[in-house]
């Protein structure tokens, strides 16, 4: 009964989505307030309907209702409660429902927090979001109904894929989807602006906090996913340039460009058509990501059983979204004037440079991700494009981005003198080159990659310190507290996010260059050496879990005779899925991780053990955390609320046609 209620509720949500898609749009074009006002309740009702459907599905999982196909395939009575709940979205149908849920959540958030938007603009934003939602809900209902019954019911479920039974997977998909889907708000704002012909600074200001919040979710989602891959896949890598990872990384890159481009559009009225194009592209890449992940067209380390037929539907949706929005863009964009002019040495120019570079980098990732698909589709052979390609292209493209990133905040809008800009930065430049070379020599790893990474990281971090110092220099005489209080939240956001990039580069460089690995056969009592650490294998004991059997090894780690940690990696065997799983054990430290996994048992009673030394690896995620926190600061700036209020009475952009 409850699944049927959920199914009905989902159909109701589709009807409400269509109402939200059509009625306010008509109202906006005919200037009928009554019709425009339908959008808000329709969106809120739709959210309740989807949330109810989601609740029904969750209920079926929690109560182990195996007459529901989805629960029977993805759950088990012995599955721990938390994984029964996350099992709801650990599959195709459920994850689409999560997609729809987060879209409706964003829509409701817009109706609640952007109350001050002009009625016609709000109506169009809701209309666009309604169309997207209608597309996804019909996709869910037609091709991937999560409420399909399994009759007769089975006595026991098949359990959730063991790889997904992990703490990281509890929050990774919701965060990632909130990020992906969040760009739909920026997209809707852009389309509404094109429709209304209102593409001014006010539009950019309304759109900015939404875009930043979506970016924060995406950043956090990608970081958590990468952390999951690091400890759960058991090979100690954190980024594989896998198509599914690229699928989330491409919207992130363009989203980063969009955030900065919106800043220029708001402050200087420039880059208007570029900003709109970026908003359209970022959301299109989010849809492409959904297509890549959900269609099964790619070979990926993350490719769980998928269904190619469904891919066609998302592909059609993607073509419609891109086609319609680009047509609209082509029709409206010529009306946009260029905005204010600027000199070659100006903040506008640095931001333009970085925008173009980020877009080109996104293009190169897109090419590497899709090229094998094209070749395969045209029957020209099967190939794969691995990490070496992406590293060879991405690092050279990102190097100037990082250089410009530090320059940007020192340069004035519109035009500036090169001498004035470089004066505080010359010592930073010299120091970072010296530090980069010095550290590379000190750790005995003088390669182009290591030196480049260390120089860039020092450049970012010292540059950030210098930027803060220049804030003090500007207000000489004021107390330190007064200076710090006087800095707006948005500035702190920028500062933190940029410093986060520096921290991230340190982590990626050091872990990439200096990691060590040893696969070794061990018997109880034997020791092995790696990177100055002594690993003593104490033996293996049984450690049964709720829905798996496990062999748990105990390995003591010591350095110069002093005990550091006792690690207990496991080799699990999930009973219902008949699937083995390696559960790594990690001693996390501020400057290094010691990582151990347990391989196969050999006939003579010994075990294969994988030992890893990963210097500075946690800085990768610390950097991402700083970026996300920076985003939160930026979005919370009082300016948005205050200016929005002041601007609104003048929001006379209602079309009078």
């Amino acid at each position, binding site marked *: 009964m409850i699944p049927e209620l959920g199914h009905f509720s989902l159909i109701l949500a589709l009807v409400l989505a269509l109402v939200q898609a059509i009625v306010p749009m008509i109202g906006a074009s005919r200037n009928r307030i009554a019709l425009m006002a339908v959008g808000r309740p329709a969106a809120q009702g739709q959210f309740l309907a989807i949330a109810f459907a989601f609740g029904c599905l969750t209920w079926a999982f929690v109560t182990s209702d195996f007459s529901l196909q989805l629960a029977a395939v993805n759950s088990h009575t012995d599955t721990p409660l938390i994984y029964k709940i996350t099992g709801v979205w650990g599959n195709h149908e459920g994850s689409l429902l999560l997609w729809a849920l987060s879209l409706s959540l964003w829509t409701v958030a817009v109706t609640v927090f952007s109350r001050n938007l002009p009625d016609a603009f709000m109506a169009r934003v809701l209309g666009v979001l309604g169309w997207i939602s209608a597309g996804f809900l019909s996709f869910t209902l037609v091709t991937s109904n999560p409420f399909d019954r399994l009759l007769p019911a089975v006595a026991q479920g098949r359990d959730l894929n063991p*790889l997904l039974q992990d703490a990281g997977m509890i929050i990774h998909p919701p965060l990632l989807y909130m990020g992906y889907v969040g760009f739909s708000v920026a997209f809707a704002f852009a389309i509404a602006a094109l429709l209304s012909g209102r593409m001014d600074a006010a539009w950019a200001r309304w759109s900015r906090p939404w875009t930043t919040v979506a970016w924060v979710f995406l950043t956090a989602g990608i970081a958590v996913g990468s952390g999951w891959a690091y400890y759960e896949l058991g090979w100690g890598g954190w980024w594989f340039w896998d198509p599914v990872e690229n699928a989330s990384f491409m919207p992130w890159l363009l989203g980063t460009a969009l955030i900065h481009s919106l800043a220029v559009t708001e402050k200087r009225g420039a880059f208007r058509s570029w900003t709109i194009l970026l908003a359209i592209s970022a959301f299109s890449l989010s849809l492409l990501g959904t297509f890549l992940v959900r269609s099964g067209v790619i070979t990926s380390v993350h*490719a769980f059983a998928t269904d190619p037929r469904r891919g066609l539907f998302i592909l059609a949706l993607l073509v419609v979204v891109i086609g319609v929005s680009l047509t609209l863009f082509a029709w409206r964009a010529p009306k946009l004037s260029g905005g204010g002019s600027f000199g*070659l040495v100006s903040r506008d120019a640095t931001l333009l440079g970085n925008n173009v570079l980020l877009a080109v980098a996104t293009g190169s990732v897109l090419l590497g991700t899709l090229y094998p698909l094209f070749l395969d589709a045209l029957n020209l052979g099967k190939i794969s494009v691995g990490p070496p390609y992406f590293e060879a*292209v991405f690092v050279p493209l990102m190097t100037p981005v990082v250089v410009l990133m530090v320059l940007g905040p020192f340069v004035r809008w519109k035009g500036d003198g090169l001498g004035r800009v470089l004066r505080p930065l010359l010592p930073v430049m010299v120091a970072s080159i010296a530090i980069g070379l010095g550290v590379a020599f000190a750790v005995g790893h003088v390669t182009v990659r290591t030196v480049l990474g260390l120089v860039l990281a020092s450049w970012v971090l010292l540059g950030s310190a210098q930027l803060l110092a220049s804030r003090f220099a500007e207000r000489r005489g004021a107390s330190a507290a007064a200076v710090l209080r006087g800095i707006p939240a948005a500035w702190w956001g920028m500062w933190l996010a940029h410093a986060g990039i520096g921290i991230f580069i340190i982590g990626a460089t050091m872990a990439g260059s200096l990691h060590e690995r040893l696969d070794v056969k061990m018997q109880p009592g034997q020791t092995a050496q790696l990177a100055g650490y002594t690993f003593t294998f104490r033996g293996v004991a049984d450690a049964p879990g709720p829905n798996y059997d496990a062999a748990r090894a105990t390995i003591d780690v010591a350095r110069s005779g002093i005990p550091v940690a006792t690690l207990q990696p496991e080799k699990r065997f999930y009973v219902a899925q008949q699937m083995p799983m390696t559960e790594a054990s990690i001693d996390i430290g501020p400057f290094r991780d010691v990582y151990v996994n347990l391989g196969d048992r050999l006939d003579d009673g*010994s075990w*294969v053990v994988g030992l890893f030394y990963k210097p500075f690896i946690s800085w990768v995620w610390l950097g991402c955390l700083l970026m996300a926190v920076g985003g939160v600061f930026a979005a919370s700036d009082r300016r948005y609320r205050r200016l929005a209020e002041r601007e609104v009475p003048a929001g006379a952009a209602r079309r009078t046609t």
Partner: protein
Amino acid sequence: MKPRSKRLLLVAGAVALLVGAVALVLNAFQQNLVFFHTPTEVAEGKAPVGRAFRIGGMVETGSIRRAADGVTVQFAITDTAKVIPVSYKGSLPDLFSEGKGAVVQGTLGPDGQFQASEVLAKHDENYMPPEAQHAVDQAKKAAQTVAQ
């Protein structure tokens, strides 16, 4: 600077960037594309020597052997028509087992032994890597053609 010459400079800069990026991409493609070959193609000598490529197929039943160090593994990969011996040093993926699909990446030695640097199996017990499936399908198709 006049606005016109400034615009010209910007356009020139953008073009230079684009040309640089394209050169970078092509160069990286040239060096880093990994082609896929079926065991039959490898046996027929169609695979490159000294350059990395991928083979997909099934791990032949009864072929997995461990060397004395416990870490080096020998196995054979087959598309049901031809069998290619593979040597690999390191930990194997959880779902790697005999009779199951796998994809290996590495280089072909002069002795016909494939030195794998990477072994890929899948996350899901019921899921066959597309390349492995492709190799088996090709071999079956060839066998049918011969039978006719």
